[in-house]
């Protein structure tokens, strides 16, 4: 067993070999590049679903605007004050930063878990794309409460799209990534066009004078749809904050910010948050109201922006699912001995296509995004404690490397314990991560100091 784990770890190390060394001074990037990266990354297929669901959950207009302003500001501050400073000081990816802390075994487990969680997210993207095809073709799409696939046509279309995305992910990631960069500004135009195009249908005057009245009475009117729990301002604040929890508090974006000249580059994340996670969510909410709150992102875009809208949903799903499948294939390759990457990506893609057939993955997207961030958050807390707190308390850095641990038992206990703590915490799912993060940081510091005392 130990030999197998060692083999998996060495395969994973080879996979990340190219970024083992800290980034050299000459490779640092300009601030404009960070602005462009964030602007391109955060207008995706999920935006068609998230903004629409806020309408279904009966958010009031004032709560939505205030919540998005505050939540996105907190997300930007998390990138700026939590993620970017550690990345700039270490110039390492999270993988290599975690390795001497968690131990090679636990770091590999973290990577594989991340890949599996990504696969479900890619499944949701495939489902969203499938709604576009079904809407244009006049085929049945799932009802808002569906968990299981409701029709054979849905399964056939969704699985076919999943297979197609997988084949494209295997054939050429680089070329498709370049194509995705062309899509980002266009997708943003489609969001705005879809929302503006339905203004006459919603009764908004061309001078924009009665927009707020229409927003409060016809779009975000505070009345949840049947079966949906009501959301208030704090739900929106926390959702906007944790929508990218794994990236900022979870420190995944160290991979990006290790190229930054200053930690202040974290502020450039605002270029992704406010157009993508504010304006695009508002636009999809407006479109949702215009189609009488029908939970069907494909139909919504088709009805509001025509064929270009349906194509946008399809392409947004693809450009989001494609790198996800590729990264999942990379991570899973390390645990499958000597299997070619294309076979691993194909297997991950087919499993993802099968997951996508279950409409619950996109109909419960908000909850899934919360669970995804929550699951990986304790590792971010451990890394934060190791970087900022424990050195000030006199603890030695890199505990797993110093002790020769394959798995840091303290980190494993804190990770599992935090998830159990969050599970039992009597709070709404959206609010659990913050007390969980604080508890994880405190518990890890406590355990590390206790372990040092018992050793001494």
């Amino acid at each position, binding site marked *: 067993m130990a030999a197998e784990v060692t083999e998996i770890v060495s395969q994973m190390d080879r996979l990340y070999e190219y970024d083992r060394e800290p980034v050299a001074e000459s490779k640092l990037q300009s601030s404009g590049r960070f602005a462009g990266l964030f602007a391109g990354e955060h207008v995706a297929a999920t935006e068609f679903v998230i903004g629409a669901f806020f309408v279904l959950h009966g958010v009031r207009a004032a709560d939505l605007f205030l919540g998005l302003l505050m939540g996105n500001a907190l997300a930007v501050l998390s990138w700026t004050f939590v993620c970017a400073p550690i990345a700039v000081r270490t110039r390492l990816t999270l993988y290599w930063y975690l390795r001497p802390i968690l131990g090679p075994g636990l770091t590999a487990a973290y990577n594989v878990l991340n890949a599996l969680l990504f696969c479900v997210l890619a499944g949701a993207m495939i489902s969203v794309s499938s709604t576009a095809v079904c809407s244009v073709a006049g085929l049945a799409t799932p009802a808002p409460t569906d968990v299981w696939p409701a029709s054979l046509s849905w399964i056939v279309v969704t699985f076919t799209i999943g297979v197609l995305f997988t084949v494209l992910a295997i054939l050429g990631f680089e070329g498709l990534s370049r194509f995705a960069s*062309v899509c980002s500004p266009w997708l943003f135009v489609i969001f705005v066009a879809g929302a*503006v*195009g339905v*203004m006459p249908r919603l009764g908004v005057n061309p001078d924009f004078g009665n927009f707020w009245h229409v927003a409060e009475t016809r779009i975000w009117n505070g009345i949840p749809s049947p079966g949906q729990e009501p959301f208030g301002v704090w739900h929106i604040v926390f959702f906007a904050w944790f929508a990218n929890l794994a990236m900022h508090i979870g420190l995944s974006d160290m991979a990006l910010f290790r190229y930054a000249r200053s930690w202040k580059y974290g502020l450039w994340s605002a270029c992704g948050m406010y157009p993508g996670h504010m304006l695009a969510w508002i636009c999809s909410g407006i479109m949702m109201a215009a189609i009488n709150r029908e939970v069907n992102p494909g139909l919504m875009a088709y009805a509001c922006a025509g064929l270009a809208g349906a194509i946008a949903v399809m392409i947004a799903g693809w450009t989001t699912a494609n790198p996800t499948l590729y990264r999942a294939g990379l991570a899973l390759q390390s645990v499958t001995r000597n299997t070619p990457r294309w076979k691993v990506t194909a297997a991950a893609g087919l499993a993802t296509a099968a997951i996508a057939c279950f409409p619950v993955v996109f109909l419960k997207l908000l909850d899934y995004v919360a669970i995804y961030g929550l699951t990986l958050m304790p590792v971010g807390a451990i890394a934060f404690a190791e970087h900022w707190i424990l050195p000030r308390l006199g603890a030695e850095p890199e505990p797993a490397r110093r002790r020769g641990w394959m798995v840091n038992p303290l980190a494993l206990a804190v990770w599992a314990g935090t998830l159990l703590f969050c599970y039992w915490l009597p709070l709404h799912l959206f609010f659990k991560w913050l007390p969980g993060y604080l508890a994880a940081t405190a518990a890890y510091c406590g355990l590390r100091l206790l372990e040092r005392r018992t050793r001494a």
Partner: protein
Amino acid sequence: MSRLLPAASLASLSAGLASPFLHWHGVLSEDGFKQMLLVCSLAWFVLAPLWIARRQRQP
């Protein structure tokens, strides 16, 4: 050509963005706005990759 491609790409994107406003102000019908958006989208996907490819070839 080096200036024409970016100008034409951005013009197609801008025209796509303008189309719903033209519909909102009663200049275009709903079908007209959707058709204009589709044509502008197609133009963007033809012109923008050419622009990017040309920029990457330049030293």
